[in-house]
């Protein structure tokens, strides 16, 4: 099962990188969303995939008897999902505001902070 998931993660990474290389801000944001999902699946897979075994330990034992699902990657992924969701939401709003103010969503034309015809510093008095 790991192999299949690994191939899927690779596919996600490829799509994310392709989209993030785009000039349009909206496509970049879609790429970031997919990248976040790829990373979450990667963490999940790194915790070893197991099928239909709950992460429960019998009362009289300290360690599980059989291989069980690893709860830690699920906790990590949950944290990562919350964080990447909030960041994605912020970036969406930011991109929309930037589009409203700057009139473009093409990153090459967003040159307010770094003007295109920037003057060289003074050479003498």
């Amino acid at each position, binding site marked *: 099962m790991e192999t299949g998931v690994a191939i899927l993660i690779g596919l996600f990474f490829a799509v994310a990188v392709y989209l993030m290389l785009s000039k349009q801000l909206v496509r970049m944001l879609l790429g*970031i969303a997919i990248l976040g999902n790829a990373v979450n699946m990667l963490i999940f897979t790194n915790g070893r995939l197991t099928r239909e075994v709950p992460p429960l330990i019998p009362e009289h034992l300290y360690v599980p008897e059989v291989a069980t699902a690893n709860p830690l990657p699920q906790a990590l992924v949950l944290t990562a999902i919350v964080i990447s969701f909030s960041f994605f939401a912020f970036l969406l709003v930011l991109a929309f505001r930037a589009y409203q103010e700057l009139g473009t969503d093409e990153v090459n034309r967003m040159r307010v902070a770094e003007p295109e015809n920037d003057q060289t510093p003074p050479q003498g*008095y």
Partner: protein
Amino acid sequence: MAGSSVSVDYSEAMATAPVASGDWLVIAPILITMLGGAVCLMLRKNTDIQAKMGIALLGLLVLASLGLLIRVLDHGVITMVMGSWLPPFGIALTADALGATLTLIGAIVAFCAGVYGASTVDNTGRRYGFYPFLLLLMTGVSGAFLTADIFNLYVWFEVLLISSYGLLVLGNDRIQLDGAVKYGVLNLVGTNLFLIATGLLYGIFGTLNMADIAIKVAELENPASGTLATVAALYFLAFAMKAAAFPVNFWLPASYHTPNIVVSAVFAGLLTKVGVYALIRVFVLILPESRIFMADVIGWVAIVTLLTGAIGALAQSEVRRLLGYLVIAGIGSMLAGVAVGSVLAVSGAIFYAVHSIIVMTALYMASGILNLMGGSYDLRKLGGLYQKNVAFAGVFLVLVFAVSGLPPFSGFWPKVILVDAAFQDGRAWLGAAILISGFLTTLAMGRVWIFAFWRGGPEGTPDGQTAPSVVADTSQLTGAAVWLPLGILTALIIYFGLQPEWMLELSTQGASGVVDPLGYVRSVFGGEG
């Protein structure tokens, strides 16, 4: 290095002994800023209380960090575990000399920024949450410096990142939106790389505790294997992005000059250094073999960062953008320390980080005053400020000397250590790059001083003539709020320059703590390691 594996009796995985009262200081910087930030957020409409409360809380943060540092120096590394689950199961906060020193310096800088912001951030900025965001930023910064868990480090990075977004767009100008888009996207990509590397590291070792990973790496038969090298390369790219090292540094000059000047000052002081701190932690403490494997790459990245930063600064006419390039050049020096990796080199990097936090914040604050006095950030339009305020001209000259690494100020000693360490390690090019970068920085900053202070007036003014009256808002310059923080930071720069022994000892202690992590591991695992 601890030889044997740490065996934990699973039935005794819970901490039962109460935490010593002094050890609560480990979590105090995080609690103060987090709770204070929350309260400030609730009172955000009451702009008068906000400034007072923010400054008081940041002052408390300075005291708590100072107490923490003193306790660390007295008792050695101290650890506090969360939720009473012992490591490696629970999350641990660990304060060693490195983390505690940087927490204290960060707190001092944040306090200065809080005071400076009291006069330069207007009511709109306060209502949009300058003080809450500043406090929450410090939560993230202190948390990153004090955590002993690598996933937790990621979480603290995110905490400081989301607060920095809030600070960056404060004021809502077009230029800020442009800067924030680039800053936001690039930093998010960097954080995702960090997370990928952490996920892979967890897959290899099954633990996230830094001390535990350090032990397990030392026990590996082939620590420079391909998988671990991949993880190390991913970590290096991620932290290089955070620290703005060449070639992933272009977000910094695009965004650091856009926000309110006090926000720029805090960012330039703290944020990139958290990236450097993470590099030291991961490459020197956790993955020493990978650092040796990648030393040449890190060294060349350091050289190019040093040179491009200084050359970029030479090509700027806008003071804030010029300073942005100097931040990058400073990062190159610290990377040089990581590349060499000996105790001497790492102590140089730590000392340089402390120096850089203080001097870059002070320079941005000084450039804010420059703007208030001269009415512009543009070198073409500045001039004649020497006549307006001689003392400020002197302070600025101190900062110019310090950032260029000239004696007798704080930049000199770490540069001497780093160059010495580079030559001792046989990396002559690295040492030469540090010296050349310092020379180019002197040129760039010397030019700022000559244009802004020395010549009579703006470009085109005939020599010998006094400056034409510039329309500038000098009403903010009368209060102590802008001068006090600059004075504190300059005093520290002079103190560290003339009396470097204290800081040298501290950074050597911090460096030996990460190069030989026995004390760190012992603190986390309660003496068994």
